[in-house]
């Protein structure tokens, strides 16, 4: 990234829209705008597609994370007025990641094959077979650039290392070994109630009052036992916070939303014949998604330039209105509209107040509340967490690992058949919402200690080790009573950790600017919320244009020369 080749000049120099950053939201907007016949220039300072949504080789991931972990050096040229009619506003980047820990336990093996890995920066993430991302892919024909495989199952984990399969369908309930007969009956009746409600059957309508009440209250009202409630809330509706503790729950799920989640899950199972589970995962990693939309945009005429940093914003001297950007090559490019990836920050000259029309027009963008951070972990192992199944999701509901755990921890295991790692290896993506980095680390370590053997002789720093040990012993204490007779503990060897990367990602970055910024990766398992936001941004900048009109599908163009340059 350091050796930037000489920049060829970009021609033309005026566009309808400039998009900076090739994360998924930026890529979708670029594709949508191109489809709406706008001229679009899509820039990325990185030499790869996807920005914070990319999938990177093993060796590149640490450097990418750390390059976004500190504020960059002060701008190379002081903000100055050009001789012409523009003011220059310097770009700065905001740190997105913190507390980055990279541990390697098998240096040779991994270093030699770094390029065989495609590690998601924003994992764990999947696509529900019936969610908005799939609809968007199908509607835009973008699916032709990608291939998916099924994530075959969902499990709920406990602190003894057991993984319980989630009875998420009629057949699964029938087959389930962990539920009692009464629990099976209650769960299936609840599913039927929800299905009946969704199908609009009059006699099973859920009242409006119930729909507005907290989902957990509704589940209690239905008399569902704790185990089933936990399955529904955290492994099907994918709630993030402990729903039963209103003190810590920042996102109390309403019945209405909970039922929508169940509907999504239900519609996802069996939607595609060869997908046995509810989720899909793209071959070569989640970064493919951004890249596919970039291809889509390129086919529609969008111009792509990678490795092209942008140094400053050009604003009208008198009105303060946006005019264009200055590239690292020194070239000035002009456009009507600008979309920025969320790590960019514009330094306003002291004393000047930002021209405000945009800010006021984007109320949805001032995120409702502070959602803190998300802790992410990537682990590489040589054995699957569960024999006979390679791609699956594990959910640790709040307080399932230790009493202070107030958020769900999700883990996604992806195997080499999805081309994300060396054959025979497995990549585990772990994430949990947290208030700060320490809390986040604790959450991720708790999962790792429950499921993995962490070798002692490693290159990682001592602090991590001691913390690991501490949490490990805490968990051990708690379970020592029952673990003696436990079914899973002694029998099978836990997979050994080969490599891990732990980091925290900001979920909010004092967002409001007068320039449109796209959302950063959120704490959800799928892309639904991100796509919603992206759609709103598009509507905001092009209120008169349709977001991928239906007709765009009927003439799928062959992407020959138009493929994105690298």
């Amino acid at each position: 990234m350091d050796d930037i080749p000489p920049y060829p000049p970009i021609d033309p120099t005026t566009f309808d829209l400039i998009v900076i950053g090739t994360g998924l939201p930026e890529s979708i907007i670029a594709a949508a705008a191109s489809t709406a016949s706008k001229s679009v220039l899509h820039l990325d300072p990185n030499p790869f597609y996807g920005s914070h949504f990319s999938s990177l080789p093993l060796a590149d991931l640490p450097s990418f994370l750390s390059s976004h972990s500190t504020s960059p050096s002060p701008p190379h040229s002081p903000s100055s007025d050009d001789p012409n009619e523009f003011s220059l506003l310097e770009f700065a980047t905001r740190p997105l990641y913190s507390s980055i820990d990279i541990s390697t336990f098998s240096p040779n093996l991994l270093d030699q094959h770094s390029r065989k890995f495609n590690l998601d920066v924003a994992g764990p993430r999947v696509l529900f077979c019936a969610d908005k991302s799939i609809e968007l892919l199908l509607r835009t024909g973008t699916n032709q650039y990608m291939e998916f495989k099924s994530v075959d199952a969902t499990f709920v984990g406990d602190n003894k290392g057991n993984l319980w399969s989630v009875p998420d369908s009629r057949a699964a309930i029938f087959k389930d070994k962990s539920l009692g007969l009464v629990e099976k009956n209650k769960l299936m009746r609840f599913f039927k109630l929800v299905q009946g409600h969704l199908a609009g059957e009059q006699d099973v309508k859920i009242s409006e009052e119930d729909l507005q009440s907290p989902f957990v209250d509704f589940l209690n009202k239905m008399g569902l036992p704790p185990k089933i409630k936990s399955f529904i809330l955290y492994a099907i509706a994918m709630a993030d916070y402990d729903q039963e503790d209103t003190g810590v729950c920042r996102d109390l799920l309403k019945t209405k939303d909970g039922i929508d989640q169940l509907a999504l899950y239900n519609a996802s199972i069996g939607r595609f014949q060869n997908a046995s589970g509810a989720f899909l995962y793209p071959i070569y990693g989640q970064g493919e998604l951004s890249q596919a939309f970039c291809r889509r945009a390129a086919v529609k005429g969008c111009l792509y330039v990678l490795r092209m940093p942008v140094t400053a914003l050009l604003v009208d001297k008198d009105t303060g209105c946006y005019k264009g950007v200055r590239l690292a090559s020194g070239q000035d490019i002009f456009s009507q509209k600008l979309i920025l990836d969320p790590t960019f920050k514009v330094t306003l000259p002291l004393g000047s107040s930002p021209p405000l029309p945009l800010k006021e027009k984007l109320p949805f963008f001032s995120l409702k509340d502070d959602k803190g951070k998300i802790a992410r972990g990537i682990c590489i192992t040589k054995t699957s967490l569960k024999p006979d199944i390679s791609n699956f999701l594990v959910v640790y509901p709040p307080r399932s690992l230790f009493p202070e755990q107030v958020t769900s921890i999700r883990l996604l295991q992806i195997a080499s058949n999805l081309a994300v790692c060396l054959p025979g290896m497995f990549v585990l993506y772990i994430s949990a919402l947290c208030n700060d980095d320490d809390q986040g680390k604790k959450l991720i370590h708790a999962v790792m200690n429950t499921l993995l053997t962490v070798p002692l002789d490693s290159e990682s720093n001592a602090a991590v080790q001691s913390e690991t040990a501490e949490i490990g012993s805490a968990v051990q204490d708690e379970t020592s009573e029952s673990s003696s007779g436990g079914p899973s503990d002694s029998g099978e060897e836990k997979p050994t950790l080969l490599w891990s990367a732990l980091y925290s990602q900001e979920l909010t970055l004092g967002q409001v600017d007068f320039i449109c910024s796209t959302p950063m990766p959120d704490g959800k398992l799928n892309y639904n919320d991100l796509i919603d936001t992206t759609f709103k941004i598009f509507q905001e900048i092009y209120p008169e244009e349709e977001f991928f009109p239906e007709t765009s599908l009927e003439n799928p163009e062959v992407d020959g020369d138009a493929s994105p340059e690298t």
Partner: protein
Amino acid sequence: MHGRPRKAPKPEEEAASVAKAQKLRALQTQFFSFHHNKIYTKEAVELSAKLLEINPESYTAWNYRKLAVEHYLSQPDCNPDLIKSVLDDELRVVENALRQNFKSYGAWHHRKWVISKGHSSVNNELRLLDKFQKADSRNFHAWNYRRFVAESMKRSEQDELKYTEDMIYKNFSNYSAWHNRSVLLSALFEKKAEGFLSKEKVLPEEYEFIHQAIFTDPDDQSGWFYHLWLLDQTVTTDSPLLASSWPGHGYDVLLVEDRCYNGSAFSPFTALHSDSGSFPIVLYFNQPVGGVSSSTVTVECGFNKNEDLLWKPLSASNSQTARVWVAHLKIPSSDLHSTVEVSVGHSKGIISTRGFEYSHPSMFSFKVRVQPMERDFSQVSVAESISLREENFKIYGTQSEESIINSFNQLSIKNGHESTASNWRSEALAKEIECFRELLSLMDCKIGKLTLARLLMAYDVMSYPFANKLVHSEEVLELYSDLMKLDPTHYQYYKDEHSMVLLQKVTSSKESLLQHCFQYKDSVSSAICGPICLRLNNLSLSRMGAFEKLLWVQMLDLSDNELQSIEGLEAMQLLSCLSLRNNKLRSLTALEPLRKLKLLRVLDISYNQIGDHSIDTTRYLCSSPLSHSVGSESNKDETVTSGVALIDNWEAFYIFKDFNLNQLDIVGNTIADEKFKSILVKIMPKLKQLDGKLLG
């Protein structure tokens, strides 16, 4: 495959179907000409293939192809290669036809026929089946064929059992898979295969398995059907058992050839009047059996030779199997005391309809005493009329309580050998009862209630054969009453079950039965019937049951009930007086069981619905007069001479001609007009009273 709504055809579809019909007709015409002229050329055979591809239901075409195959195979130059190619062609045609309609009976049958020839690989068939069963896992044609293939391949039942399990795990709403499971398990039980030696081990696991389905989705019926099969496997003992007999063990039977008998030493329950010179021995088995004869049942007594005894099955149809078998012993001519010993099943030959041998030889004995005729029979009986009305009864007194107790306790045959073996059965039932109580505590579920009722009843019957007490009968009756309200569509079924349980309850103990025993008038004055009348009137019974406990009854009052059928009543061989007044009998054929009651003299069928309905919907439940023995029994000449129009009164003739009634009440039925009554008088010349009027 299931639940796809039917759509109205579009115009172009209709046009296509017209064109298809035309093509089909042309093909058919040509095909038939080939067929009739026995032309089996290549061209002709191909034409039939084309026809079958469009219409796999064309049976004639399949048969034609069979003839063609036979034709080829019988050629002198026929060699193994040719056979193979001919048969492979057939398999291909079938496969194409099945692609068109995978539920074509003809196609599947043809395939079986081809494979049965034994020249084709069966292994391919499993692959084909996998394809069809993947497309529709509930296609019973495929399942049928699978059983055939598995058998011809000698695939083990265990493997197939595993296959049903896999299919059930995919979707447990699959009647065919559950059914196949029951078929396979039956086969394994019969074979006594390893791991399937005792039901005791296997059934609990199956119960556990089916509970998962039933609890997960109680609305799905397929699981319940399998549960019912399991319940049957649990309750029904393999080998048939003798449930009761008349006379019972230890009876003192007083045979009276006239009304007078010395009551003092004998219980009124065991005195029998007979004017036919013989008395019956009745064997009541717990399930239909065949093979009861003088070689399998030995009757030893001083006055009859065992070999002379003719055992007859008593069943509605004329099959040679029945639960009830009867033989008639000649009444000894002189006043004597004699002991009769009956041993059942000491030599092999009694076999249940399921093919199980009667394996618990049992013996019972009773004493017979004959009361010689003291008066001229004809003088008394003419004037007497029997009327089962309230005022003619008095509650059976306590004066002879002792003798009643003694005799009642002897009514049932001891089956001690079963009680130990059935421990696991009642344990299994108890478990099931607990399980379904739990289900019903979770939700209201009709079939759950029905199952609980069946379980409770089965449990009572099994656990208390000697306690003579049905612990749960009240609860069961309540469940059925509930079901009648909840599920009006099946009202009649619940009503019938309710009646059966009520009768079980009434007959379960001496105390409850005695409440229904009444003394008819002055017992001494009765010349025809025994003095005790069992009154089961006004209980809103829709069906009669508990016959094994009622074999001794001679006078039975079933008036003011809701009986539509009296199926099974033929078991009550001693009945001489029966009131069915004010019930819901709808046809004369409903009276068929009475034809087998040789001692019946007084019958009241007044105020029923006989003749109300021009179409007799119950007929199909009873044996049809058009089937069985009727044709051979009836004698046209006899009919003609008695002047009855056979055609118009077929049923009346059929039912009443064998009756030996003295007294009949039929008033209050639509059919019973004056003309009909005059016909009855002609059919039954011995009748002395009709609707209360003395006949000259």
